[in-house]
């Protein structure tokens, strides 16, 4: 009976651990997948780890992450330690109140901390701007910069701010355990306070400081939300980069980098625990144990006669560190730079390297998550991008709100290569602000192994024939747009009755349980793994899915669909306008468009590139490009005629969309 119980409890523990660790194990296993799917195993390979180290976006963010974590940890450890000591010299009541205050930021939601820090920085920058302009106007000796933006320094400050409480929390118990008379005793024997601190207090509270620093470092490396709001456009931490990459899909590359991140945090934790265990063992064994060779060496080194050697080593290390940081800062500071914000997995990264080598301009390439996220980031004033790549309707909105700078097309000769079809589009009728980047169509993707017939109409989404196996796109414009098309209305209608009718169609299907869920990026896994039969998504992404599941088919329904353009534009008052023009011109070139088309499977607006792509493909892979695939990637003119572009809708209509979309969740 008892034995059975034990078996049962072991099973329960086993299940608990499985639940905790299975997702991580799965991620680690799939980081070694030879294929690029997260659902289908195609054999063992280290390919993605190799790719990882060639991915400059990831490597740059690793560098930023390490630098910000190390610096923030160092500063927070010093500040937090002294703060804890200060707290302990206060009376009990005040100390406890302050420790309470110290604990609040740790329990506070990260998002609140992040947003408030962002607001604080932006408000400070505005105040500083007015002060600097006034200061510069009254004297000419010192020129203060009047335009500060979020960047590495604000990221660092934010990390220091959220790290300090962890250090205090770890140092405080050590101070509490310490005999308060120790410091008195040291001073009594002739030490100044500082000397007593170094010689007596520091050795006593060192374990607390070390574990505080380790936890702060782990927190820094881990942090996403606070960094996201304070890093601005110029820097991106690893977590932010990973998040940007997942916008499209969880690639095995992300699995690989996550595996490495998981392992390094694990190593840090094990290290800090081992240290404690060893310290306890030493306490127990006392002098009975002979010191190991390493410890003897360390003890010898600690003897007073080696003091100068110790000091020298520490000095050299400190100088080297400062020098490296300064050199890096100098190197990045003096080179011309262009800040670009695009979407995740939306460029062949070799192009960035190539541009940098050709021009000597450093490209600071960041990614945003959606048009709406980009818009709010720009509105908050925290970003200082030069070039952004929004979609058509968002460009219309940015122009309407005077947030874009007109381009000087004389500096962009490659604009001539852009097909006439993609010029003077409704969002920029006189083509003053934009150079198209890619274009594509929205359509239905379905699994031919699960759907017998050929799908030709949007009705497949609503008729309930595949109830429970349809994925609704989680984006109000597309989801309601599809229903409008099915009903025969324009996707840009402002007629409330029409929009409500379309919404009712979607809501009714939702009530009948037709939809398995509302998805954006999960669509990749779901469709590739055969977990859903029908979904709607973009043509380029369909082509990526096809590589992992050959049963998938794509159709632009007979009622027509949406076709979209993403275009490069320059933001108002961009700080690096010359470099921005050079970048736009470079990306508009035929060669760059060919490389991008091959990498991201989205069609190019460059006439030459579009025509030459099949030949380019054949040359590259030694096989002919399936003309059907090419047609899906770059829809022919007659298909495009059935499609409609999104226009920027009036505010009233936008808010109707919002209201209805929110309502769908509760309907």
């Amino acid at each position: 009976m008892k034995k059975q119980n034990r078996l049962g409890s072991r099973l329960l523990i086993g299940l608990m651990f499985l639940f905790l660790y299975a997702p991580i194990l799965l991620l680690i296993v799939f980081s070694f997948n030879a294929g690029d799917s997260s659902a289908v195993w195609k054999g063992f390979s280290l390919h993605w780890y190799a790719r990882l180290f060639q991915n400059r976006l990831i490597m740059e963010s690793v560098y930023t992450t390490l630098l910000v974590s190390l610096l923030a940890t160092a500063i927070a450890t010093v500040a937090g330690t002294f703060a804890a000591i200060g707290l302990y010299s206060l009376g009990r009541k005040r100390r406890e109140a302050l420790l309470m205050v110290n604990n609040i930021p740790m329990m506070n939601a990260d998002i609140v901390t992040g947003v408030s820090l962002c607001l604080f920085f932006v408000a400070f920058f505005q105040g500083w701007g007015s002060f600097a302009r006034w200061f510069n106007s009254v004297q000419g000796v010192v020129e203060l910069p009047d335009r500060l933006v979020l960047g590495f320094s604000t990221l660092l400050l934010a990390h220091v701010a959220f790290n300090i409480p962890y250090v205090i929390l770890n140092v405080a118990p050590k101070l509490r355990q310490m005999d308060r008379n120790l410091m008195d005793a040291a001073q009594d024997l002739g030490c100044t306070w500082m000397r007593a601190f170094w010689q007596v207090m520091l050795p006593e509270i060192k374990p607390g400081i070390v574990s505080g620093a380790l936890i702060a470092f782990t927190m820094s490396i881990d942090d996403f939300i606070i960094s996201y709001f304070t890093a601005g456009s110029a820097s991106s931490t690893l977590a932010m980069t990973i998040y940007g990459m997942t916008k499209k899909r969880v690639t095995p590359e992300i699995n690989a980098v996550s595996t490495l991140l998981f392992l390094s945090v694990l190593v840090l934790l094990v290290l800090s625990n081992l240290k404690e265990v060893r310290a306890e063992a030493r306490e127990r064994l006392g002098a009975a144990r002979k010191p190991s060779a390493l410890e003897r060496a360390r003890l010898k080194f600690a003897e007073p006669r080696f003091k100068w050697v110790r000091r020298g080593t520490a000095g050299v290390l400190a100088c080297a560190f400062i020098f490296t940081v300064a050199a890096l800062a100098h190197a990045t500071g003096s080179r011309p730079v262009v800040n670009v914000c695009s979407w995740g997995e939306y460029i062949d990264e070799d192009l960035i390297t190539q541009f940098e080598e050709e021009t000597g301009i450093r490209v600071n390439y960041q990614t945003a998550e959606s048009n709406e996220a980009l818009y709010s980031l720009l509105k908050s004033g925290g970003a200082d991008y030069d070039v952004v790549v929004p979609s058509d309707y968002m460009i219309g909105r940015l122009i309407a709100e005077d947030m874009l700078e007109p381009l000087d097309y004389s500096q962009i000769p490659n604009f001539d290569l852009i097909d006439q079809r993609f010029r003077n589009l409704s969002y920029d009728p006189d083509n003053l602000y934009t150079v198209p980047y890619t274009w594509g169509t929205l359509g239905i993707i379905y699994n031919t192994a699960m759907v017998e017939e050929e799908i030709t109409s949007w009705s497949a989404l609503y008729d309930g024939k595949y109830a429970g196996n349809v994925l609704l796109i989680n984006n109000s414009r597309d989801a309601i747009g599809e229903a409008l098309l099915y009903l025969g209305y324009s996707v840009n209608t402002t007629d409330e009755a029409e929009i409500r009718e379309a919404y009712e169609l979607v809501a009714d299907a939702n009530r009948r349980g037709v939809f398995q869920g509302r998805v954006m990026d999960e669509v990749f896994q779901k469709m590739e793994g055969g977990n859903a039969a029908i979904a709607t998504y973009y043509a380029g992404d369909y082509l990526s899915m096809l590589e992992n599941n050959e049963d998938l088919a794509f159709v632009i329904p007979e009622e027509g669909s949406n076709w979209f353009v993403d275009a490069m534009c320059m933001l108002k008052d961009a700080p690096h306008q010359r470099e921005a023009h050079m970048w736009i011109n470079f990306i508009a070139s035929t060669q760059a468009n060919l490389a991008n088309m091959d990498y991201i499977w989205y069609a190019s607006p460059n006439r030459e590139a579009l025509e030459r792509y099949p030949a380019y493909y054949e040359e590259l892979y030694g096989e002919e490009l399936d003309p059907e695939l090419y047609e899906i990637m770059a829809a022919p003119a007659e298909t495009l005629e059935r499609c409609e572009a999104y226009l920027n809708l009036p505010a009233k209509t936008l808010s109707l969309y919002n209201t209805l979309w929110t309502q769908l969740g509760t309907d």
Partner: protein
Amino acid sequence: MSKELIRLADCVMAFDDEVVLDKINLSIRDKEFLTLLGPSGCGKTTTLRIIGGFQTPTSGDVLFDGVRINAVPPHKRTINTVFQKYALFPHLNVYENIAFGLRIPKTDGKGNRVKLPEEEIDQRVMEMLEIVNLKGFEKRRTTQLSGGQQQRVAIARALVNRPKVLLLDEPLGALDLKLRKDMQNELKRIQKAMEITFVYVTHDQEEALAMSDTVVVMDAGRIQQIGSPEDIYNEPQNAFVADFIGESNIIDGIMRADGVVEIFNRRFQCLDGGFDRDEAVDVVIRPEDVDIVPEDQGQLKGTVTSVTFKGMQYDIIVDFYGFKWLIQTTDLSPVGSRIGIKIDPDGIHVMKKSEYSGMFGDYSSYSEEYEEISDASLDPEEEDSGDEE
């Protein structure tokens, strides 16, 4: 008598609104063993910390050799301290603990920073180890030592710096009774050998009487009496001192004339004088100064209500007219028997009435009071409440 070394003049210490020391005036002579004695919270540790430099008095002066040192930090005073729980440095071994003070560079007369040569440090540490009987313990970790050994390391660590004054804050409080007795002798021996001033804080009156040249009795932030152990015991100045030092019966009396005091409406001969005629006074009678006689020969007559065997003597409680006395005697008088007592004139001490009058004396509350006073484990005073552990 040797010259004065330290003087506290009108020292007041107040935390927020709480006055911990109230106008303390104290003179400490060179090479004397002075004890600050009092119950928890009387201000004795605060006085010690003011001398050590860990606290600055709110008002008043601290003089060292005639020089005001209120603002001199601890590390610049030629005073060292032995702390309550020893405060040994846990990360250093015995040798390094003792050498700690010697390794700190000192500023010489010309303003140069001077360090002691390693040979001298070694010689002085070894010398101290010998004095405190800890030879062969150099490499031990302090956590591996017994309480008494730690205590001696703490003393050696302080004395190795050759201070003019050694402050000891309840140094024997954590030791068991036998070890405490040994260490009392040891400390006295060291003080004589080193020829320096000891300022010793304790709440244990026996310890104070056994070791000190001068005893300073404190209560409620004020000095109650300063004197030699004999003076303090034999001529307590008020009911508090009489009660705190040794056992005593404190009785209301009326001074009828010089040398004549009236207790329980009976006149007794005494040696005290200088009071107003018919002045109300406190009368102290030590339990061992009372002679038991047959009932009919007694100056006072009472009933034995309790007997406790104490080894050397019996402690008996006798009820006189409803007031209970403690009497120590070698002869057994059984509970319930009627006895008489006689008191010699030198066994009667007359004191002026004070704020403490009426607070002590009746041994009907004997048990509680007796235990409270003799409880050595009572938590000594601490500025910050002892919630830290």
